[in-house]
């Protein structure tokens, strides 16, 4: 890992992402990667906009050199351990939306996931590769 040489947090996350994508591409003997889909929650500690900005810098010379990065934002949802309600919450107020208690469990919102990767096949596709939509 060479992430320590990169200044930005999001750049090092990008590099970890590209290493995983390369593993996927290699194991499928793909020529290249056309689309990468991430799922990110506000409590992951990663800023989607900064990740989008860092991605073109990090992808050069990799399997994903021309890939599109799609980031799906996930909502913050909590389940109350007192009243059992499942409600929306915000990053710094993870309280139950129904009874207001702070004894809640996070259902969604801290994800930092590589959801899927679209690959271009090595043989068939190299004639007319088409970008994924």
């Amino acid at each position, binding site marked *: 890992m060479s992430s320590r040489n990169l200044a930005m947090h999001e750049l090092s996350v990008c590099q970890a992402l590209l290493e995983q994508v390369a593993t996927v591409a290699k194991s499928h003997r793909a020529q290249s990667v056309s689309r990468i889909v991430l799922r990110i929650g506000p409590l992951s500690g990663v800023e989607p906009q900064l990740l989008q900005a860092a991605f073109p810098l990090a992808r050069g010379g990799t399997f994903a050199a021309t890939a599109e990065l799609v980031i799906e934002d996930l909502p913050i949802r909590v389940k109350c351990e007192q009243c059992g309600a499942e409600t929306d919450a915000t990053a710094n107020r*993870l309280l139950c939306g129904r009874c207001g208690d*702070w004894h809640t469990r996070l259902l969604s919102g*801290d994800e930092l996931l590589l959801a899927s990767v679209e690959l271009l096949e090595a043989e068939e596709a190299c004639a007319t590769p*088409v970008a994924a939509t």
Partner: protein
Amino acid sequence: MCDTCGCNVTPGNAHLAHTPNERGESAVSVLSSLLTANDQVAAHNRAHCDTHGVLALNLMSSPGAGKTALIEATIDALKDELRIAVIEGDLETENDAARVRAKGVPAHQITTGTACHLDAHMVHEALHHLPLAGLDVLFIENVGNLVCPASFDLGQHRNVTLLSVTEGDDKPSKYPVMFRAADLMLLTKTDLLAVLDDFDTKRAEANLRALANPAPAIQLSARKGAGMEHWIAWLKQEVRDQRHRVAARVSLRPAIQPDGAKLHQSFGQWRIRG
């Protein structure tokens, strides 16, 4: 080998994992944490500490909140009872490691250059420079930063987050990712409360609770000694708990890490997408 990084997909079974469309494209669902590589090294570090019976604590805070002063005061209080070592993380200088070594305790300085946080790989390298055998506690003093360090598992057992009273009692609300990760919140430099009229310790704790975090909040002044006994008691209890876990061959992850590992178990398989 595992279902998360894709190394279980071989040329023999790859056709099961994806189907190309007419354009030669195929979609592969992965659903694994982006930080899988870091998390694997972190798990290795934790196992390494467990093997040697060491409790590893990750100290995180803003720059200047008093992490090194806390370590120095802790060494002074416990050096006859517990064997301590320290990994120091800073962008530059050996200053903090030198301060710790002056107390007679082994320390290894990581200088990250421009990186804003420690990661598991850096800590792994540092572990090879420290005599783990015979240690009780390893402090990992992270880079002073309330943002990035919270996202990287280093292989610690507990996260200790310091908030100095000169910083403002709304820090947990401003940096929820960091304070949600705390297993213990230390309000430091409380000797200065007498001259500050805008820091309310109750409000700081309420802001921590608003993050659904039940972590204890301890007030202390490492320089003046007030409240240190509560921190020392917490630390000794953690050392005892770690000894019991080691004896029972159980390991402990900090309360909150990005939920990658949990998700791996339920979703960590290659899937075909239309």
